[in-house]
């Protein structure tokens, strides 16, 4: 595949992530911050997000398995997760945190368990999609091309 085709594929794939609501405008902010002095900025920030998220999801899972559930601690984890997903533009993950926090406040264990399931689904979905996107970027760069700048309106 030649570079122009790869770039068009990248643009289409990225647009689909926005159209499906997986990503929001904050992700565009990250892309706009990437420049020659920080050519891997997006990958670096998103990698931090992946590391933080896996740890948060593990901590929440374990906390829900305890004989005496600490809803306050779980709520704090969910608040953190909401913040980090919002900062990288992972819209559906961020939105999944909102009902979760409510269930924590209500100390509703079933609600929390359901939310955790949902959150894991959304997280692994966006993780998968972003990894695919980054792989496309690597191919473009390896072929001597550059990653297109997205227009804001589409």
């Amino acid at each position, binding site marked *: 595949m030649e570079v122009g085709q790869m770039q068009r594929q990248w643009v289409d794939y990225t647009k689909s992530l926005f159209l499906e609501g997986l990503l929001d405008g904050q992700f565009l*902010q990250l892309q*706009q*911050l990437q420049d020659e002095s920080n050519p891997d900025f997006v990958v670096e*920030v998103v990698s931090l*997000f992946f590391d933080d998220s896996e740890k948060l999801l593990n901590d929440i899972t374990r906390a829900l398995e305890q004989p005496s559930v600490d809803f306050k601690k779980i709520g704090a984890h969910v*608040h*953190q997760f909401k*913040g980090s997903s919002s*900062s990288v*533009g992972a819209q559906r993950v961020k939105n999944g945190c909102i009902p979760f926090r409510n269930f924590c406040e209500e100390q509703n264990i079933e609600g929390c368990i359901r939310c955790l399931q949902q959150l894991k689904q959304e997280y692994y979905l966006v993780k998968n999609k972003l990894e695919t996107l980054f792989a496309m970027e690597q191919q473009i760069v390896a072929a001597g091309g550059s990653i297109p700048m997205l227009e804001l309106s589409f």
Partner: protein
Amino acid sequence: MESGFSSSSMGFMENVEQPHVLAVDDSDIDRKLIEKLLKNFSCKVTTAENGARALEFLGLGDHPNHCNVSKVNLVITDYCMPGMTGYELLKKIKESSVMKEVPVVIMSSENIPNRISKCLEEGAQMFMLKPIKQSDIKQLRCHLMNCRS
């Protein structure tokens, strides 16, 4: 030109080509983001992961020293942090005789009017809602440097 805030705070950002900003946030992602956002607007950036470290850097910690006092032109801090909140950090800065004129900006992911007015009453220069964007930093620089545009 009308400004709406004290001239002593303006002095810190006016005529400063490369303002030195201390950015405080317990989230590593947000620290990385705010650092890049500020650097893109020609700021020199030091980050701290909590209020205690921030105070140490400012020379207001357990072992007071004044070596960084004149260097910092702005403190930007997250509100929700474990240990010392951004509000508590703001108070400590405003209570200090050496640092009280340094503008402090509070960031938060939550738009709570009580929280915002509490911070502004305590002397915060601005309150910014997360996630922070380039336009927010542009507004911040204009606000603190009294831009005419």
